[in-house]
C-alpha cells in the first residue's frame, strides 16, 4: 500500500530540493491537505454506517467547554441559562431561578439510551451522532425504509414538541444540533443493539455468538495442542503440530526461587504463591484446555474461538457484511453494526486530518495521486522566499483543480444517471393538446370592445 512518503520524494525531486528549502514535514502537510481537498470538493468516497437505536455518543457533558475535552462525540444534556452562568437539568430550574411560576416539565436524561429505562417523554431531540470522517449525508433509512428529509421549520408547523413524540420514524432532519449530527421523527424508544463488543478494550473480537449460526472458515482456527507453560511450547515441532494454546494463568515472579515463570490454573494457586489470603475463587478452571473440541458441544454463547488471526471478512448467504471503511483494508474490525431495526446512513467520507508520511493513500485511486503532487507544488512554489515562482504555482494550482473535478465526475454517477435518463419518472415528454386559436379577424366579444 502506497504512502505519502513516496509522493514526498516525488515532490522534492520536482523541486530539485533535498529537503533544505522545503522540509519533508511541510511537503507531507500539503500533500495531505491536497488529499482532503479532493475528498471535500468531490464527495466521491461514500459508504454506509449503521447506527443503533437509541442513539449512542461517547460522553455527556454539562457545560459547553467540556466539549474541548471530549475525545469523541458528545451530548450536552443541560439547558443553558443566564448567559451560561447556570446549567439546568430541568427547565423548571430556570423558572425557579428567575422567580417565574414553576411548571412541571418532561424528564431529562444524560444519555439518550436512558429513554428506554422509564416511561414518559423526554425533553431532548432524538439526535444521532455520525462518524468523525463524515462529510455529507445522502440518505437515511430506518429498518431499510427510507426516511424523508425535512427541515425543523416544517416539523415545527406539523407538531408541538415534535422531538419527543413516540412512533415509527419516517422523517429525518439536520436539526439544530452540532455538525455531524441529525435527528429523526418520530422516535422509536425501544432499546436495540445489534452487536455487543464484549471487552472492547481488550482488542479485537475473538468469538461471536447470537441467534444466528456462526462458523469460521480458516485452516488455522483450531488449537493443535494445549500446554501449561512456555517450555512445553518449545518442544520439537515433530511432536507438536498446529497452534498451541496455554491454558494456565501467569507467569508471575517466583519469589521463592527468584525466578520468572510461575504458572497456575486456579486463582487460589496464585494467591497462595504470592502469600496472599486464599479466597474462594470464582474462576472456573477450564476442563477442556483446547476449548474447541469437535466431540464436545461448545459452551453456550461461544461458538468458536479463533486460534490465529483476527476477523477479516464475514460471509452470509442472506446478508452482506460490508466494511464501512472499505478503503482502510488494513487493520481489524473494532465495531460491528447492522441495518436491521436500526438506522442506516449513506454518506461521504473524508480522509484523516493527521499528516503523516506513513499515512496510506487509499481513498483515491492510484492514478489520481498526481493531483496531490500538483497541489503541493502549487502551494510550495507560491510560498515567499527561495523557490518562489508564482507563474508556475498558478499553473500547478490549475492542474490540481482537475483532480476534484475528475473524482466528482466519477463519484457522482448517480446524479448524472438521473439527469440523463430518458423519460424521467413523472415527467411527460408528450406534447399536450394545442389550445384553440381564433382567426385574427374574428369579431371581438362585445364586452371587450371598449
Amino acid at each position, binding site marked *: 500500500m502506497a504512502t505519502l512518503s513516496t509522493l514526498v520524494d516525488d515532490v522534492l525531486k*520536482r523541486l530539485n530540493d533535498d529537503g533544505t528549502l522545503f522540509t519533508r514535514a511541510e511537503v507531507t502537510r500539503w500533500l495531505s491537505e491536497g488529499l482532503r481537498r479532493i475528498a471535500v470538493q468531490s464527495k466521491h*468516497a*461514500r459508504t*454506509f454506517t449503521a447506527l443503533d437505536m437509541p442513539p449512542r455518543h461517547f460522553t455527556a457533558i454539562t457545560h459547553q467547554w467540556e466539549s474541548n475535552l471530549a475525545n469523541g462525540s458528545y451530548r450536552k444534556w443541560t439547558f443553558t441559562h443566564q448567559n451560561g452562568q447556570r446549567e439546568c437539568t430541568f427547565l423548571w430550574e430556570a423558572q425557579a431561578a428567575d422567580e417565574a411560576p414553576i411548571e412541571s416539565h418532561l424528564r431529562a436524561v444524560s444519555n439518550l439510551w436512558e429513554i428506554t429505562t422509564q416511561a414518559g417523554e423526554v425533553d431532548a431531540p432524538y439526535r444521532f451522532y455520525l462518524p468523525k470522517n463524515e462529510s455529507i449525508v445522502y440518505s437515511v433509512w430506518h429498518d*431499510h425504509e427510507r426516511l424523508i428529509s425535512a427541515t425543523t421549520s416544517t416539523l415545527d408547523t406539523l407538531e408541538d414538541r415534535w422531538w419527543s413524540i413516540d412512533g415509527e420514524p419516517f422523517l429525518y432532519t439536520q436539526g439544530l444540533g452540532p455538525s455531524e449530527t441529525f435527528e429523526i421523527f418520530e422516535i422509536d424508544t425501544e432499546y436495540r443493539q445489534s452487536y455487543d463488543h464484549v471487552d472492547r478494550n481488550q482488542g479485537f473480537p475473538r468469538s461471536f455468538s447470537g441467534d444466528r449460526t456462526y462458523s469460521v472458515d480458516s485452516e488455522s482456527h483450531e488449537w493443535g495442542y494445549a500446554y501449561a507453560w512456555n517450555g512445553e511450547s518449545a518442544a520439537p515441532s515433530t511432536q507438536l503440530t498446529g497452534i498451541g494454546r496455554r491454558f494456565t494463568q501467569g507467569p508471575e515472579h517466583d519469589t521463592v526461587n527468584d525466578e520468572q515463570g510461575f504458572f497456575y490454573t486456579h486463582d487460589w494457586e496464585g494467591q497462595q504463591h504470592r502469600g496472599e489470603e486464599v479466597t474462594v475463587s470464582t474462576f472456573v478452571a477450564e476442563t477442556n484446555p483446547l476449548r474447541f473440541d469437535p466431540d464436545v458441544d461448545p459452551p453456550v454463547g461461544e461458538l468458536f474461538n479463533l486460534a490465529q488471526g483476527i476477523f477479516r471478512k464475514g460471509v452470509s448467504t442472506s446478508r452482506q457484511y460490508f466494511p464501512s471503511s472499505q478503503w482502510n483494508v488494513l487493520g481489524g474490525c473494532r465495531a460491528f453494526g447492522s441495518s436491521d431495526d436500526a438506522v442506516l446512513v449513506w454518506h461521504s467520507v473524508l480522509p484523516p486530518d493527521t499528516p503523516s508520511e506513513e499515512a496510506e493513500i487509499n481513498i483515491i485511486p492510484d492514478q489520481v495521486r498526481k493531483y496531490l503532487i500538483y497541489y503541493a507544488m502549487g502551494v510550495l512554489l507560491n510560498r515567499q522566499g527561495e523557490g518562489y515562482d508564482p507563474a508556475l504555482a498558478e*499553473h500547478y494550482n490549475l492542474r490540481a483543480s482537475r483532480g476534484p473535478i475528475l473524482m466528482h465526475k*466519477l463519484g457522482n454517477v448517480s446524479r448524472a444517471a438521473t439527469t440523463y*435518463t430518458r423519460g424521467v419518472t413523472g415527467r411527460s415528454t408528450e406534447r399536450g393538446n394545442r389550445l384553440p386559436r381564433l382567426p385574427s379577424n374574428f369579431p371581438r366579444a362585445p364586452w371587450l370592445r371598449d
Partner: protein
Amino acid sequence: MTREEIRKRILYLLNEDVDNPVFFTEAQANTVIQEAMEVLAEEVTELRREGFIVVEPGRFIYMLPELSDVAMTPLRIWSDSDQERLDPITMKELDDFQERWMESTGDKPEWWYPVSHDAFGLWPIPVNGGQVLRVEYLAWPETLGQDTDRPNFKEELQDLLVLYGQYDGLVRQWEPERALDIFFSFAASFRDGRFKSATHKFQQQFFNRDSVGSRFARP
C-alpha cells in the same frame, strides 16, 4: 509508437542526448509517459475494458478494485449467464420503486446502482449467486512495463504523449513559459472538439436506456 520511441522523441525535443540524458533520466521519462497516458485517459474517456465478476449468494455490493486496478467507472453490466443487460438505476429510484428494496431477494440481479466512486450494488439481492457479470468499464491505461510496449491509444493521440512529456521536461528545467505554451497546445486538443465524438459516444453508451416511467410506478 513504442515507449522507447516516445521517450526518445521527448528527449530529442528537450535537447537531450537520447541515449544518455542528463536532466531527464529514462526512469523519469517513463513515469511522465505513464502520467501523460493517465491524463489522456481522464480527458478523452476512450479506454474501455471489460472484466468478469461472479455473483456471490447474498452479496449485493461489489468493489471496482475487485475487477481491475485500472477500472475508473462502470459503463455497462451484462449478465452473461442470463444474456441480459442490467439497467443502471439510483438508490433514490429504488426507494421510489419499493419501500424495502434492501431486503428484496431474487434469483438474479436485474439492476445495478452506484454506491461510491469505486463500488456498485445489484438489485434484487441474488439468493443463489453463480451468475457471471460482464462489466464494461472506463479505464485508466495499463502500465507500460517494457520499452517495446505500446500505449493503448490511437496513433493520432500518441503525439500528445510526446507533447506532454516535453511540457513536463520543460517544467523540470525551470522554463515555465515554454512549458505552459506546450501545455496549452496539449490542452487545446480537448477544447477544439477533437475528442468530442469519443466523449459523446461514452455518454450515449452509459446513459441511453429505456424509459423507466412505467416500470417504476408503484403498484
